[in-house]
């Protein structure tokens, strides 16, 4: 019964990477055969790192990371979980003091063969061998077939046939498949297998036939094939090389789901880990775990639920003709019994248990991660030495080197490596200047090592981290801040993901004030984009969408507010107004400005809107020229008419002329408005006067002293006897002297020229004012 593979030569153990059943079977086979050496599919450069696997500070999941020394971005991972057959084999060998070796094509070659940029994992055949076998057995899902046939076998699996029978049967099946499909559409396998055969030969010379090989089931027939050494050598001739380094890095269960290194990503590492760890009754134990998790989340789950779930899972397996309930059956049972048919708690179960949050650990003695090398290299090229003492650097972003330095620092901050802190810029408020306070603390090395899981270069790691943060962010403001940081760090690849997250959050956020809070930051980001010459088209589109949503949602949000809420919203409206102004120049948002004006118009005219907001909207429209002075005066008259509650009217005044600069000047220049306020104020009843006084005081006390004095003088003088406020030009109505004081007006001309950047007029003669287009018009 023990097939040709077992008796005639080395023990070939074909496995599924990350298969708990395979791992169990490998362990049983190793215990039974007790080989003198264990050969494992993996890069041989890793041999030196193998003893680290015995270190007790090493906790799977971990990954063997190979990277090109000169190009850390070119890297490959061989992840191993506690339930990976490879890991089990390594640990067995180390525990029994048997040498273990990696026999796959060295990373030196495999990395050289991988074109940078193509993310093709070295070990995935284009034909899915398991899929073909499963199809033959009548299964539509290959994973399920493998689970039923291999992974779900009881621990004593194989029974009387011995622990090796399954491997022999699998080898036979694979041989048949390889005959049908050849290299499975993956020509590089031939090179890899040739190398593995050579290694196998070397080992046989040394140890005889007492050898166990743990490799992907697909490779078993190729290793058993009889070829000549010369033929294998010929295959390996001229394979390119690149200088590589290897190390162990901590891995997570979540990342096991990704394709890399061994090629086979798995969707349910937590479930597999459970199958591997559970000594018996896996379904019962699993259901108990799930119940525990749901109870922690305050769901009422009794023992009766667990019992019923186990029964339903068993029943489902029987209906579906499976030997044991698999993940699908248990999940269906949990949904029907414990989650009341809902997928929401089920998502939690999937996230926490089926995938799991297990985090691996690697001892400090493992070699440095490539991220550190990349950082070192960038520090050299940018002449930015890590120093323990604090120092400040000023970066001028218009210079290439400084811009690169800024990018590096921003990327490191994203990765949680706090080398530099932004300091408030001195003197200049321009967006092209940044001030950083740098200080390299020794523990930052640890941070770099930790950040190593995100990627092998600063750029790729920061991109991956930003993307992950965007996906997991909960609030809109969080994502907006992230978008800003991405732009600063110039993470072009992360931007689409962040923008998508931003658009999604914006779409689901029902609170307009959140949206309004986010918009100004985005508009600001667009300006950064200008300075740094990054592509901000997507950002612009998202910002325009945000503005659109604000236009829709703002009017209903402005009613029924208390005074604090109204005041807060007024500030937001100011921010949005500025942002819309910026946006309509930067993005193709047709008609956005007009729609915003229409919204303001609606706010200004609606009675139920809080006074301060109505006043503000009127003012903004007036400033934009969307509202004539007459119309503004009409609205003011309405707001200040006797029927309005005095406090509401005072709030309107605060909104209209308070806060922002220039509020007072408007009253100075338009005496009709001042007259309206004056008339209203004198009409306020004595009892109500004390109520409006604090509001008015707040409004008017914010004015500059000069403006206050002029207003006072105007009020003392009383209504202008000169009739209509925009009188006959020369007879200025607004408290200024009649006519222009030409020499005094000329005195500002040199400064104006300087500000406007006109050609310098070195000798501005005091008399040549006639050809100036600058005149003071009322």
């Amino acid at each position: 019964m023990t097939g040709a593979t077992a008796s005639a030569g080395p023990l070939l153990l074909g496995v599924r990477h990350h298969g708990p059943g395979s791992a169990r079977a490998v362990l049983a086979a190793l215990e039974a055969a007790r080989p003198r050496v264990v050969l494992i599919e993996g890069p041989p450069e890793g041999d030196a790192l193998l003893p680290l696997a015995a270190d007790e500070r090493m906790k799977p999941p971990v990954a063997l990371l190979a990277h090109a020394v000169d190009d850390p971005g070119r890297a490959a991972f061989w992840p191993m979980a506690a339930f990976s057959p490879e890991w089990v084999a390594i640990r067995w060998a180390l525990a029994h003091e048997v040498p273990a070796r990696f026999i796959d094509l060295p990373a030196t070659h495999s990395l050289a063969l991988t074109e940078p940029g193509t993310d093709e994992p070295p070990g995935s055949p284009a034909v899915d061998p398991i899929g073909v076998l499963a199809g033959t057995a009548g299964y539509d899902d290959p994973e399920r077939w493998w689970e039923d046939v291999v992974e779900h076998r009881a621990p004593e699996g194989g029974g009387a046939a011995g622990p090796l029978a399954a491997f022999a049967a699998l080898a036979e099946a694979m041989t048949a498949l390889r005959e049908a499909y050849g290299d499975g559409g993956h020509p590089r396998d031939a090179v890899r297998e040739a190398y593995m055969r050579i290694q196998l030969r070397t080992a046989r010379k040394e140890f005889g036939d007492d050898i166990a090989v743990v490799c992907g089931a697909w490779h078993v027939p190729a290793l058993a094939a009889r070829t000549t050494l010369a033929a294998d050598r010929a295959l390996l001739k001229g394979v390119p090389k690149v200088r590589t380094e290897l190390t162990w890095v901590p891995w997570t269960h979540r990342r096991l789901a990704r394709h890399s290194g061994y090629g086979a990503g798995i969707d349910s590492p937590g479930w597999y880990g459970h199958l591997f760890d559970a000594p018996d009754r896996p379904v019962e134990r699993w259901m108990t775990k799930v119940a525990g998790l749901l109870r922690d989340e305050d769901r009422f789950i009794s023992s009766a639920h667990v019992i019923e779930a186990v029964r339903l899972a068993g029943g489902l397996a029987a209906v579906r003709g499976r030997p044991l309930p698999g993940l699908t059956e248990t999940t269906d049972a949990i949904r029907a019994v414990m989650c009341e048919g809902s997928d929401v708690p089920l998502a939690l179960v999937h996230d926490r248990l089926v995938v799991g949050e297990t985090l691996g650990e690697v001892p400090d003695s493992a070699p440095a991660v490539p991220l550190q090398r990349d950082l070192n290299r960038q520090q050299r090229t940018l002449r930015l030495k890590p120093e323990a003492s604090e120092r400040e650097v000023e970066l001028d972003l218009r210079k290439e080197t400084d811009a690169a330095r800024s990018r590096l620092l921003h990327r490191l901050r994203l990765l949680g490596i706090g080398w530099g802190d932004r300091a408030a810029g001195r003197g200049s408020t321009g967006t092209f200047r940044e001030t950083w306070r740098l200080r390299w603390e020794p523990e930052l090395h640890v941070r770099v090592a930790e950040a190593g899981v995100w990627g092998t270069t600063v750029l790729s790691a920061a991109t991956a981290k930003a993307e992950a943060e965007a996906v997991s962010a909960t609030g809109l403001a969080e994502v907006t801040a992230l978008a800003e940081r991405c732009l600063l760090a110039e993470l072009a690849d992360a931007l689409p993901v962040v923008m998508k997250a931003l658009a999604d959050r914006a779409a689901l956020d029902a609170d307009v004030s959140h949206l309004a809070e986010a918009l100004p930051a985005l508009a600001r980001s667009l300006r950064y984009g200008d300075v740094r010459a990054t592509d901000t088209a997507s950002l612009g589109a998202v910002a325009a969408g945000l503005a659109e949503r604000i236009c829709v949602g703002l009017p209903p949000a402005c009613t029924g507010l208390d005074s604090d809420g109204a005041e807060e919203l007024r500030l937001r409206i100011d921010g949005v107004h500025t942002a819309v102004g910026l946006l309509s120049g930067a993005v193709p948002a047709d008609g956005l400005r007009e729609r915003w004006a229409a919204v303001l118009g609606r706010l200004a005219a609606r009675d139920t809107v809080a006074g301060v907001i109505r006043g503000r909207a009127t003012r903004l429209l007036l400033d934009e020229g969307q509202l004539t002075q007459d119309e503004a005066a009409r609205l003011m008259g309405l707001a200040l008419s006797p029927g309005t509650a005095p406090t509401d009217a005072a709030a309107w005044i605060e909104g209209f002329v308070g806060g922002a600069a220039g509020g007072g000047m408007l009253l100075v220049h338009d005496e009709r408005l001042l007259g309206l306020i004056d008339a209203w104020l004198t009409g306020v009843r004595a009892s109500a006067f004390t109520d409006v006084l604090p509001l008015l005081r707040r409004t008017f006390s914010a004015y500059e002293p000069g403006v206050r004095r002029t207003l006072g003088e105007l009020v003392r003088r009383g209504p202008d006897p000169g009739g209509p406020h925009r009188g006959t030009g020369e007879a200025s109505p607004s408290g200024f002297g009649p006519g222009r004081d030409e020499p005094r007006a000329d005195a500002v001309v040199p400064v104006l020229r300087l500000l406007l950047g006109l050609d310098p007029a070195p000798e501005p003669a005091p008399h040549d004012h006639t050809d100036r287009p600058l005149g003071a018009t009322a």
Partner: protein
Amino acid sequence: MTVSATTATVASEALRPHAEDAFADELKALAAADDRPRPVRWKLSPWAVSTYLLGGTLPDGTVITPKYVGPRRLVEVAVTTLATDRALLLLGVPGTAKTWVSEHLAAAVSGDSTLLVQGTAGTPEEAVRYGWNYARLLAHGPSRDALVPSPVMRAMSEGMTARVEELTRIPADVQDALITILSEKTLPIPELGQEVQAVRGFNLIATANDRDRGVNELSSALRRRFNTVVLPLPATPDDEVDIVSRRVDQIGSSLDLPAAPDGLAEIRRVVTVFRELRNGVTTDGRTKLKSPSGTLSTAEAISVVTNGLALAAHFGDGILRPGDVAAGILGAVVRDPAADRVVWQEYLETVVRERDGWKDFYRACREVSA
């Protein structure tokens, strides 16, 4: 009150025959081909019941028509639940074939889908326990002969599948009567000092409306006795368009509306709008949306289109146009005048306005929303 016996009606004359009569041939063929183990008193094995619902072809070539188009997983869970001693609760928004599935399950499992309690706000306790034949009670005193069993009681004593429709509409105290039945599997008759014990094969299928949970929410004690299966809305737009247009045709012909020559495009649009708002994401998966508070079920899409057809037939030119459905859609979407209106406006401005070929629809919607 209670149903003592179903009046025998010749199946062919019934306006709507029972499932076990309408599909008698299929059930017979399945029973003949079914060689898998059957739970006690089941007419078919669980596997055959799944096949009956989902359709398939038997080894002898008999084609079993699909009764339910939806995930196989759900049907398997439902059938397996019935094979255990747990009761089955089918949840879903209106129009997701809950009753239909429950009827066919009962027909396939027990060969009888008529042991039915229709849940209403006025359903009395007698409907789930037993009542009395008062003439007999007065003449002969309390005895089993004077007792009128409920469908549930009959199912218990005969080992059949009972059905309870609209469980959440039944008053809470009447719901509680089910707890003993489902956990102890006995129905005490204190007046006689007797009890009815359920024999093997008894089980219960209840249906309830997802959105109506608040009407008479199940107590956790009762809830715990059920395995819950949520029947989803149609999975793909094509399925839904198909369902809507088929139903609209049926309703339209019964109302004698003239057939709309070019309605399909508009139906597709209505279905798209409903699906997008319901799922909270556009069909291309690019843009997320807020969902309104209404259900926006397939049934509502059907009524919007029917309504639009009536408008087009009586007041328009007989062709279903955007304007005919716009008002209906607005009514279906905006249930809560404050929050839903914002949702709808956002949808109009961010999605509809930009979409190619939707300009006329956008204008029509703007007109009715203004």
